[in-house]
């Protein structure tokens, strides 16, 4: 079974820019196991992530299996996770 690690930055700026909603949308993928036919384990962590660029301009920041996504949106994160699952 594939295991995907998602880390969402929960610093003040990222929270203000929708980090908690991103967490929610990632967790919602777990409920779609049947519909999207995935057999992957999706783990969601929260911590303050550091970026190469100015964090306030990059937020919200999400890391998926080591890959950093800046200015992340719900749809971008979900789409990335699904693309990893379907490889």
């Amino acid at each position, binding site marked *: 079974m594939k295991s995907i690690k998602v880390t969402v930055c929960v*610093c*003040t700026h990222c929270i*203000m820019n929708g980090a*908690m909603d991103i967490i*929610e949308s990632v967790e919602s993928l777990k409920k779609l196991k049947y519909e999207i036919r995935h057999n992957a384990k999706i783990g969601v962590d929260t911590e*303050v992530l550091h970026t190469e660029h100015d964090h306030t301009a990059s937020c919200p920041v999400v890391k998926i299996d080591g890959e950093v996504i800046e200015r992340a949106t*719900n749809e971008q994160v979900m789409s990335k996770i699904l693309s990893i699952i379907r490889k």
Partner: protein
Amino acid sequence: MRGIYTPVTKIRRQVFSEIARLAFEGWDHDKVEELPYKIITGEVPQYRDSIFKERAIVGERIRLAMGLPLRDVNENAPVSKGLDDDMLINQTYEMPLVNVIPFACNACDETSFMVTDNCRHCLAHPCVSVCPVGAISFQSDRTVIDKEKCLKCGRCRDACPYSAIVKYERPCAAACGVNAIGSDHLGRAKIDPEKCVACGQCIVSCPFGAISDKSQLFQLACALKNGENIIAEVAPAFVGQFGPAATPEKVKAALKEVGFADVVEVAVGADIGTLEEAHHYAKEVSTGEARFLATSCCPAWSVMAKNTFPEIGEYMSQALTPMVATAREIKKKDEKAKVCFIGPCSAKKLEAMRRSIRSDVDYVITFEELMGIFVAKGTDFGQIEGLPMCDAAEEGRGYGVSGGVAQAIASAVHKLYPHVDVKMDKAEGLQNCKKMLALAKAGKREGYLLEGMACVGGCVAGAGTLQPINKATVAVNKFKTQSPIELVPDKK
């Protein structure tokens, strides 16, 4: 829409952060005029047909966030018109609280039924058979509902085997539990201030971000910058609102870091009200002296109840709301302190505007607006050392979720009057609250404790919250069980 992060949410929160930043860094009229350009950058519109329109709308949002009224579209006026030191010192604002920005409104059609492309022009056409007024007809290529005749009963929708008929509702009006939203002469949403209870659900339901409420965020931030003695009272729904790293203890520390003199849980006032209502229930409701007892801590619910069912107004709890009770406790200990209520909704802003309460509560902001302050001040919850937070009992802390108020009162009744059984009913959402009161008026809730919440889920679902409702509910319930304080019975 509610609970989904969209560009509307993004703009709303950007305005709060920038307003707070402006206040802390020192403002002048020129800087206010620059704000729309700071929030909406570039020359290509991202959200609407014109970048100038985007900036104009943001300009009005900025005004509302500063507690200023909307500008007249016909008037050539700067964004900062009306902003002066006097307005900052007085810190109050004028009605209406909740405003539609007219040129941001998409003038959505009011409620109607319409036929979609799902229609297969079937042989059976049960939609025609069930319509009591013959409003459905077939034209050459489509099926049409005559809106002049249509009763909006929904029978055609229910009968269609292809789900081709849909009920189209204007989102803001559909979210409004008191039918306060109509249309102006151009078909744009218009709020009736006589009916509006400021629950804020229209604000978070409008997909065009055309509705916003006024705020004291700017006045508060200026006052904090000036070192005024302001004590924060945080509503029980605050737990988890600022992210997983922001524990209640860290929130308290952060509030002091941004300039509040102290922090008190509003659950203190909730505990006071719980005891009062427990005594009232046991002595008057369970004995049959009073028909029932309806809680009153949700101002949107209590205003709706008094407006819609004035004949049962005497059965609304007369206890002070937790916000006011806590504020009075704070001012008993420190007469010169100002009090800032930090809560989940705009209804509390309306409550605090009442003349009888203005002297108790000086500022009201939402969690979202407070987050703007934290962003502006660069608060880092990862680094802050928390401060102990144990002002209130489990009962008061539970007020933030649906059912929590009734549970708290029932718990107190059991402790004080073990022989008394508590009959309870609760309703979430103003439409359901109306149904519950209709039952009560009809005599079907005699001897009951009735809890009403304007927001589905309770206060954690308020329009000014940041956290998803399910997580917020878990967080509040967990925090309440950690209270070391026992609800102390008084000597009544």
